[in-house]
């Protein structure tokens, strides 16, 4: 099943406008279950484009962009709006709140960070005891989440309440060939999906799902897929690039993905065994269009595909992610080139989907 390059094909442009959109998305606070701020940005973008959309009972934004023609393949693309962060769980007075993680966070990453609390992003900090007052043995142990507090300052104690969200307070910035920000997992996917809606290929019906609650168990995508009933699905996400040098100079063989090596196609993670036909399709398209890609090391982790593929009578699914360093921390770093190639690969792959894509 060879693919012939479409001479007129062009990748959707990722320029200043798109990077500004990503900046807005990255700077917005939206933990799982409180995705309002990102949903707002998404809605304003797709409304200006004039696509049909609905918001489902969980808060997923579901957009349909019909192609030209009848009974076209229905292709679902999913990108999650939520990020990992915190929920305030106890008001201890004087602006101090104890908190719990929402999604997977490393307790060693929290002390001494600035955070934004609530919808209005009130500034606050996660403090730590001065080194002068700690003992040697204390410093050998992780400061557990239960011992840390989010501090809004004594005069702001009324600005937050139990149940409010908090996220890292990291402003998006460009660093040479790289982009740095919080929540690039998965605001990059969200930005990509917005561009794909604006540049939707006409050979498919594009079903775009901006999902909620991915970080706490792929729950938004589950009901989105049930509602949308696609023929096949692609999750657009971010995946760790653990490609740093080894302490002893030996070869790093557990990198998951590498920066600068292009978008990462999944074969297997903890939640999904990708449909081999879709993996092959993406690889063929990448080879034909000379768009670099990498195979993500099979292993742990999971994306929205994990719940999508099990819906109804089964939905062949695959994930393609932008590699990113330091995901689920205050500041992640990705390469702009990897993002561009991600958008290009997905767009080209969509342009070549037809009835034969799923022939065995």
């Amino acid at each position, binding site marked *: 099943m060879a693919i012939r390059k479409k001479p007129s094909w062009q990748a959707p442009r990722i320029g200043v406008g798109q990077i500004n959109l990503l900046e807005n998305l990255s700077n917005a606070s939206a933990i799982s279950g409180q995705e309002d701020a990102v949903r707002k940005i998404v809605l304003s973008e797709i409304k200006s484009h004039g696509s049909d959309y609905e918001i489902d009972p969980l808060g997923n934004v579901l957009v349909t962009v019909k192609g030209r023609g009848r009974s076209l393949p229905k292709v679902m693309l999913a990108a999650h709006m939520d990020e990992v962060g915190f929920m305030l769980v106890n008001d201890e007075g004087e602006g101090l709140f104890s908190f719990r993680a929402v999604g997977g966070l490393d307790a060693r990453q929290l002390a001494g960070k600035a955070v934004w609390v609530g919808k209005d992003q009130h500034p606050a900090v996660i403090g730590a005891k001065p080194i002068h007052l700690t003992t040697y043995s204390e410093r050998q142990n992780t400061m557990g989440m239960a011992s840390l507090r989010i501090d809004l300052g004594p005069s702001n104690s009324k600005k937050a309440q139990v149940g409010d969200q908090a996220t890292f307070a990291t402003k998006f910035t460009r660093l040479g060939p790289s982009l740095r920000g919080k929540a690039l997992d998965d605001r990059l996917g969200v930005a990509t999906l917005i561009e794909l809606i604006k540049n939707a290929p006409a050979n498919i019906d594009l079903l775009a799902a901006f999902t909620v609650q991915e970080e706490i168990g792929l729950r938004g995508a589950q009901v989105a897929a049930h509602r949308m009933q696609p023929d096949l699905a692609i999750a657009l996400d971010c995946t760790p690039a653990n490609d740093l040098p080894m302490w002893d100079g030996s070869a790093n*063989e557990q990198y998951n993905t590498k920066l600068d090596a292009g978008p990462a196609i999944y074969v*297997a993670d903890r939640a999904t065994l990708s449909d*081999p036909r879709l993996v092959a399709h993406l690889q063929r398209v990448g080879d034909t269009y000379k768009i670099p890609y990498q195979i993500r*090391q*099979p292993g742990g982790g999971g994306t929205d595909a994990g719940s999508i*593929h099990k819906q*109804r009578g*089964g939905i*062949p699914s695959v994930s393609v992610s932008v590699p990113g360093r330091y995901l689920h921390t205050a500041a992640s770093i990705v390469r702009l080139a990897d993002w561009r190639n991600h958008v290009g690969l997905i767009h080209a792959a969509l342009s070549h989907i037809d009835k034969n894509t799923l022939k*065995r």
Partner: protein
Amino acid sequence: MKELIQDLVQIAGPSGYEADVREYVQKDLKGHVDEMKVDPLGNLITRKGPKDGSGLNVMLAAHLDEIGVIVTHLDDNGFARFTTVGGVFPRNTVGARVKFLNGTGGVIGMEPTGYSSVTPINQMYIDVGVTKKSEMPVKVGDVAAFERTFEDLGKRLVSKALDDRVGVAVLIEIMKQLKDTPHNVFGVFTVQEEVGVRGAAAAAYGVDPDLGIAIDVTLTGDTPKAKTMDVSLGKGPAIKVKDSGMISDPRVVAWMEAGAKRARIPYQKEILTGGSTDARAIQITREGVPAGCVSIPCRYVHSPSEMVDYKDVQDSVKLLVQLLKRPIKL
């Protein structure tokens, strides 16, 4: 039936890559069932019996897939690092042989970590007999199954992948032997069971049965110093009461017990505290499905040398055929 089992276990079909096993079943069942189709995830759904009869829509499920390994990295000297597909125990893997879907054979070795404790998978590698990365016949993302010959020990059979090819063989036999059932019987050969009963969920949604029964293997407690699991090889098919993922519908358990007693087929009752089967997914599909499981007792599950008792296998076929011949009232 021994030949059928032998054929089935020798095909490689790790989770997600069950195509070759599925094709074998398709060929073998041709002419024995009324309908056959493959669903979007690759489940093979066969059907036999009257569509609008007085009986129930019964779904029987046996999974095609087996545990395996998948390549994560190729190093410069031609060794492949890997991770597991399904529940592979590290203690069973060193020295094991694997076969990739493209036919490449390999052996699993480990870094010199000492022999006192179990070496974790990430300190093992697959040696496919080459010395340079450029000569590697496999790439990152390729999957392989364990390779071990089938042994007929007379009363007992030993092989890799008896979990659940022995269930597949039982289901094939049932579909062949069922002649005048009042029920609309769906013999479903599922995919991706070993990674979390994924195929059965979609298949059950498509079939929408009135009754669901998984056919799978279960652990035993009849080996030296085994924990108190009350299932033994050779004492008949095990009727599942509960496992760590589901509680069998008590009506289904009672129906199976009564059927076994009536047909004078030996049986045992099973409570499994580690593991589950396709019945878990079937039970909570759509509006819910009364579900149960007939288990074939199996020693050394998820090792390259699993062992079953041949009479248990035959009795499992007998039990289900007997049950499905008659009307079912739960």
